[in-house]
């Protein structure tokens, strides 16, 4: 019989104690998860349609320079602000230079020309379809949540799925519990004189809520609050001299690293960052987009440094709803396009590769004569991560209608 800890606590009356006062066997049960070495996935969503052609520019493709007269990143070696060389075709945007060591070490793979088989240039549809995991249709729940729905959960469960952002992203909508928080520091009840009695009262009020969503969210909230209080994350220092940017994404990834190190059952984490909708004044080696890329690259690199050896159990994937027009527009910017790219980073990743068929940027090869065409379905990348990294065997419910077996990219070391 599967004993649910939440049920056990409630039925035995121990809930009233809070985990801070829990007897030793409960703490030991929490600690037991450490041995399991459960794998963790972090999904970072770049909202607004990030320009893959600037992140990893096809420096070996002459069309790139013809189509991007003011926005192109210079070929490797061509002075300051040039791309860093990845291979004969591709370079890395100089603002992403903190990721270069990870790439060189084989811990970072790049999947280029990733997109959806049913593309749309609407931000909101494209985000919803991607996070829902069903191209061209709005799923009621999200791919990350569905991935957890059919898997046995270890206890404790409150932090199985966490979004480090103030609203739950669509990828985590669904029946598996998921917690969203703007930051670890904010996730605390300030009950003042009421102290613990306040938390107990609110828990009781939410347990009897008529509204199902509020009742379920209440359950998750109070269990999460207890776990977090015990874990004392505020006091957890950054490790290995990791240098997070003092920016929203930097702070969020630092919190994810804390949650991982606290060992409170995290399996999937999600967060997002915005500012990628660069219609005007996108910039090249420097400027608007470069500033966003620097935050992204420095945050991801600091995250990897911070986690150190623990990174062996962590996979990070980045995604965006679409790429941008191959031609720059009249305002030194780019408009909504089709395919972009994904970073896949982590311990088991077979990195130091730019993966995916590259057809080049000649007009006949562009989607509708204007956009980078999709070479790799985003579901192929995510399926492989779920299967190879998280060990999720039943992918059909996660990406209905998608045959993952035909699409292996060999993202991970065998």
């Amino acid at each position, binding site marked *: 019989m599967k004993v649910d800890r939440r049920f056990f606590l409630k039925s035995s009356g121990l809930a009233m104690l809070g985990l801070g006062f829990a007897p030793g066997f409960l703490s030991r049960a929490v600690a037991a998860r450490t041995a399991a070495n459960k794998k963790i996935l972090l999904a970072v969503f770049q909202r607004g349609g990030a320009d893959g052609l600037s992140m990893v520019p096809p420096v070996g493709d002459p069309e790139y320079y013809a189509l991007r007269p003011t926005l192109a990143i210079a070929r490797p070696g061509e002075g300051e602000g040039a791309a860093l060389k990845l291979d004969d075709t591709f370079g890395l945007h100089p603002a992403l230079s903190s990721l270069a060591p990870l790439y060189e070490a084989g811990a970072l793979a790049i999947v280029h020309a990733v997109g959806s088989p049913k593309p749309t240039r609407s931000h909101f549809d494209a985000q919803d379809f991607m996070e829902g995991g069903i191209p061209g249709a709005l799923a009621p729940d999200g791919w990350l949540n569905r991935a957890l729905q059919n898997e046995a959960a270890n206890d404790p469960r409150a932090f199985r799925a966490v979004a480090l952002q103030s609203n739950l992203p669509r990828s985590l909508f669904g029946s598996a519990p998921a917690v969203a928080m703007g930051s670890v520091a904010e996730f605390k*009840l300030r009950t003042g004189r009421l102290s613990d009695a306040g938390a107990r009262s*609110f828990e009781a009020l939410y347990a009897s809520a008529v509204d199902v969503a509020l009742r379920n969210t209440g359950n998750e909230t109070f269990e999460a609050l207890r776990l977090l209080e015990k874990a004392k994350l505020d006091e957890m220092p950054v490790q290995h001299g990791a240098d997070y940017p003092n920016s929203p994404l930097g702070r969020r990834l630092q919190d994810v690293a804390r949650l991982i190190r606290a060992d409170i059952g995290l399996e999937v984490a999600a967060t997002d960052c915005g500012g990628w909708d660069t219609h005007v004044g996108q910039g090249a080696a420097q400027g608007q987009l470069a500033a966003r890329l620097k935050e992204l690259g420095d945050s991801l690199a600091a995250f990897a440094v911070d986690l150190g050896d623990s990174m062996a159990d962590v996979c990070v994937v980045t995604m965006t709803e679409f790429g941008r027009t191959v031609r720059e527009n*009249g305002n030194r910017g780019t408009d909504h396009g089709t395919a972009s790219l994904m970073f896949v980073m982590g311990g088991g990743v077979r990195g130091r590769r730019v993966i995916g068929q590259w057809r080049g940027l000649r007009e006949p090869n562009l989607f509708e004569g204007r956009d980078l065409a999709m070479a790799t379905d985003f579901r192929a990348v995510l399926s492989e991560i779920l299967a190879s990294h998280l060990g999720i065997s039943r992918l059909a419910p996660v990406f209905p209608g998608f045959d993952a077996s035909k699409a292996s990219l060999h993202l991970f070391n065998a």
Partner: protein
Amino acid sequence: MTRLTFRFFTSAVLAATSGCASNRAPLPVPSPAGASIALPAVKWTEQQRVNHVLNRLAYGPSPDDLELIQRMGVAAWIDRQMHPDWIPDDAVMLKLRALPTLTLSTAELYARFPPIQVQARLAGLNPANSDDRETLLQAIPKEDLPRQIPIELIAAKLIRAVESKRQLQEVLVDFWFNHFNVSVDKGQVKWMVTSYERDAIRPHVFGTFRELLGATAHHPAMLFYLDNWQSSRELPDAKQGHARPGGRMGLNENYARELLELHTMGVNGGYTQTDVREVARCFTGWSIDMPRYIGDFVYRDRMHDKNSKIVLGTFIAPRGGQDDGERILDLLATHPSTARFIATKLIRKFVSDEPPASLVEKVARVFLDTGGQLPSMYVAIFSSPEFWSDGSYAAKTKTPLEYAVSAVRALGGTTSGEPPFAGAIERMGEPLYRSQPPTGFPESAEAWVNAGAVVSRINFGLALAANRVPGTKVDVPRYIKPTQSSDERVNALATAILGRAPEESTRNTLRQAVASASGEGAHGQQRPADPMILAGLLLGSPEFQKQ
């Protein structure tokens, strides 16, 4: 009647002195006594009817509005709210006079709060140098920094939401601003957004959809936010992808796409990528005069694409000039997809997260039949059986703004709109005037119900009840008498805050909480429950999250 006229006079004078009146439509003649809105019969109690209307058409019940609606009846109250100029709002107008930026034009705001780059240059400093920037930020008094503009705008929004007697107008201004969203975080929008809300949104929320659409399309805040001000005809060689190095001419399709997708037809409204390009070509030349110093609308003919276009099958003849854009707005404002899209959004706002198809059809029909008269659509919704159905009662979850403001109103509070109030709303997930995507903030519950938001809401309720939100004051003791027992206090406060007597389980929970917090008195006697703690628990309760 005499008294009414007198009140009109004072509010008109106040409005004129505060500089807001110039944009308002002429004062309508008050309708004869008796409500013109007919409400369907419903089996609810009077208390439920009142709660429902104040939760949906206002920012929740306040003691004053409760008293008023009970006195005049629900239908007459709605009728009055449909005519904000009938409603004197002197106290709020006086309060807003403490916020001088509200009446300034964009050019005046630039003069009063020059952008940091401009101030740096004037001071002989380099704005690109972070040390220079820091020196400058230290040297400039806080109230002279450009961020004072959104601070005052937010304060005004919160003051009006909490205290205005024209509650429906404030709800609608928020709704339409959000529909035509712009964000102060993008470039020059910060200097333009005060005028945007005051001149493009507020005067038209009881007008026609076409008026609103036109006002937003012309406004520099929108032209800047969605980049249209820089969009120009393609240069002959740009098509081959060889734009002149250093050139800034060319088409930008950002506004055109969101105009179709978010402002009018909806994403499945039946337009194509070609339509997006053609619409963008029609709007070329709709630009901004000196966007960093003046910020007025200007039409630049030399940027305009003078060739013919075809939009949604309609031929737009060559050399239409600025009129091309107007024709597109006419086309969109009468399109059946727009009617359905706008009806759906209004119904999601006022009735249900899942708009009933029957009502969408009905309200879309009203849109088409009346030429997009917004008040006719509002009335169709407020008088519909769907609005008054059991499934609609307390079925929607309050957004963060609605929750926070309704909490202050429930406790008979007032606010100066100082930043800590907005900070709390931001922690619940809604940074006012800073929704980055053009969709604005979401309306449905699923976006707002999550663990972090629940914690933030509970914390706000507790802080507010204890008067720990600077600038915002509530009056909890008004609801209880010193001689009341704990049980009586629980009942009195629950009735005041939730609008009805609490369930037995809720009552027990509250009793236990206050008992353990109060401890025992010197002689083993329980002190009566602390009303602040009770109010905090009630505001954070799941029931108070619903409307």
